[in-house]
């Protein structure tokens, strides 16, 4: 008999050994589960949670935190436009995936590694005054991280909600290295603020 009774065992050992030796090659062709390519943008209040500032007083500083999570599959270069508008001016549109026509007051550039997160602290305060007729508020400067950015936005008194309301929002753009341009990433976060006198 000799080795003949072990012929099946020899074949099985050969197959197992072949698979073991081929493992570096098999590793190359294994397809890992694909995840959606996307970027998360979120805004946090001064306490790193969803307690956001609402009642604003001129020259009162508050801190916001913008969190950006990169799941696009590679390192990404981003740009955030800081914008401000009153109730009638152009807003970003979630349904049409368009950004606001309002000019950016300032821009924030940063990079995020693949599957990485970055937190951007934004110190912000508003300088404004209310006209003598108490019906219009003139926004003069929005101070972002110590830089006074001038804006000529005026806010009309809202009789329904009894106040002057301004909308601070941040739009996310991602760098496209094929076109060498920043493209609107269809993500924005926004806060409605009541400007108290």
């Amino acid at each position, binding site marked *: 008999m000799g080795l003949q009774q072990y012929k099946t065992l020899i074949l099985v050992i*050969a197959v197992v050994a072949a698979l073991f030796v081929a493992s570096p090659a098999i590793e190359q062709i294994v397809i890992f589960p694909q995840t959606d390519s996307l970027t998360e943008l979120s805004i946090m209040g001064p306490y790193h949670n969803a307690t956001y500032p609402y009642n604003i007083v001129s020259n009162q500083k508050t801190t916001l935190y913008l969190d950006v999570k990169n799941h696009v599959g590679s390192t990404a270069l981003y740009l955030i436009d800081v914008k401000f508008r009153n109730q009638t001016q152009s807003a970003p549109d979630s349904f049409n995936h368009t950004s606001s026509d309002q000019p950016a007051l300032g821009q924030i550039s940063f990079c995020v590694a693949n599957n990485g997160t970055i937190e951007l602290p934004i110190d912000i305060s508003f300088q404004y005054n209310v006209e003598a007729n108490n019906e219009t508020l003139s926004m003069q400067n929005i101070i972002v991280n110590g830089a006074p950015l001038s804006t000529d936005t005026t806010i009309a008194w809202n009789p329904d909600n009894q106040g002057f309301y301004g909308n601070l929002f941040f739009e996310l753009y991602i760098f496209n290295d094929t076109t060498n341009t920043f493209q609107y990433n269809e993500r924005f976060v926004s806060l409605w603020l009541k400007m108290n006198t």
Partner: protein
Amino acid sequence: MNQSIFNWRLNLIKVFKVYILTTIVLFVMVFALFVSPVFAQGSSGSTAISLAQINLQSCYKAVKQAEAAGANVDSLMVNLNDAAGLLTKAQLAYASGDYISANSYASQSQSTLAEVTSQAQTLRANALSAKTENSIITLLSVIGSVSILFSGIVAFVVLDRKGRRT
């Protein structure tokens, strides 16, 4: 009478001419002294920011290429984000009219980026070299695997035939 009025007007025009010329010269001097440096600073700040932006974008591309080649780019991300932070400060300073700070921050951003591209290229070259080694190992493993499998099958067939004969 007419002659005297004419002379008086002529003198008036001459005096005004001197005044107008003096005013123009003074205006040009004031512009040159105070206004044009502001424009010049604004212009140089804008150029520095544009250069820093282009530099950041090209560094980012180099880092992305290194990453695509399989390199670990964590070490480069720190410098890249420091440069991006300085560029943000430059952009905010420029938007607020502080051209001197804008220029300074943009220059600092460029200095920070100076070595990133070369480091990214080195990492990319190392990653590509490692990839080549990996390819050789993969090829050898395929050859080895096929040989083992073939030997196993041959052994099985030979032993099977021997068994039938006996």
